[in-house]
């Protein structure tokens, strides 16, 4: 089926089987390999993208579900304006090691920053959102520190 969507800010038409997972579509067809797959079952969060501005698992999204939707991947976030501050905080806090989980955190945090600007997120919500992505390397403390810094919350 022909999928008309906005991909990282650009109107795009993609021909794909409707049942292709969005993660596979991005990675294999569109060459956007920043969206990582570590579980294919919604748990790890490495594949997190933004659909109409909200965090979603690309591995649990079908191409067919993207028709008419604005998709933003880590590559899109990286081209956006808040990225510098996100990157700066993550590097300052040494919040990444192998980097495999990192795109999932970047997209999740980008959505968090936008939502927080609209209406301040409570501590429980911040914790829940950071806890939606798995990292096996860092032990999370530096990631939490980077995110709290970004949100202007003390630790």
């Amino acid at each position, binding site marked *: 089926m022909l999928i008309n969507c906005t991909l990282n800010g650009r109107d795009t038409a993609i021909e794909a089987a*409707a049942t292709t997972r969005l993660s596979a579509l991005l990675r294999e067809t569109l060459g956007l390999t920043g969206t990582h797959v570590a579980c294919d079952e*919604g748990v790890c969060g490495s594949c997190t993208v933004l659909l109409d501005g909200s965090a979603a698992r690309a591995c649990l999204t079908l191409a067919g579900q993207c028709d008419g939707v604005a998709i933003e991947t880590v590559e899109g976030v990286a081209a956006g304006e808040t990225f510098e501050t996100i990157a700066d905080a993550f590097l300052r806090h040494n919040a990444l090691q192998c980097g495999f989980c990192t795109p999932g955190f970047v997209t999740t945090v980008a959505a968090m920053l936008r939502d927080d600007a609209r209406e301040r997120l409570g501590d429980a*919500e911040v914790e829940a959102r950071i806890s939606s992505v798995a990292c096996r390397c860092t032990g999370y403390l530096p990631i939490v520190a980077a995110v709290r810094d970004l949100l202007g919350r003390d630790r």
Partner: protein
Amino acid sequence: MDDPVPVPAVPDYFLPATIAEAGDLLARHDGRARLLAGGQTLIPELYRPGGTPAALIDLRRIAELGRIEWRADHVEIGAMVTIAAARAELARAFPVAAPCLGHVANSAVRNRATLGGSLALADPASEISTFLLAHDAGIILAGGELCPVDQLIAGCADAPPFIRAIRLPLPAAHERSGFAEILRRRSGGRSLAMALARLGAGRARLTVSGGTCQPFRIEATDGPALLDALVARSSAFDGPSTRAWALAAARRAIATAENAAC
């Protein structure tokens, strides 16, 4: 050599605009089509060997299924309303909605998963089932018929009916409520047990689930009586640990309700 055997075709994908259209498509495929809501459970199933249906019927273009309508004594929530949206929308009228629905999966899955899809699965350890059962929800099916939520939770393992909306009676103004869930990890994951308590004037109610035991309701006059009643029913749970967790969840839910402002 024989001719190569082709790989089976991918399923047809439909995006109906009305419930009637979706119903027709379902009927036309005679059991070989699946309704697609958020896809959070269905998508991995598609990728299991033998999991490919003949057709997928994506419900997201059916505007009616995405509505939330507030009435004098109840609210009607479309089957395609996501858990994240329901959580936000219901928070004012249902103080336990935020903590309870906030325990479902993780924040990203909640953005996609729908109430209808979740109900159709009727997973025993589901916060959604517990929430809806606790609030005496009625399920409105595609044809308009109303069926109580307990029927759906109990009996729909094989072929769930096409769910259109959920009808939730609004709690009485003086009701106090509390929710508690026992988890291995603070961050979430599979529930060990959960309980939702509703304390009204002279009427106390508790909905509990644990392990593989579907949520069930208990009624009594007050909190302590609820706990006694739960102890009496603790054989419902699949082992001593689950029993302990269910009791702990119940105690906490009741305590939260007792301490809640009305």
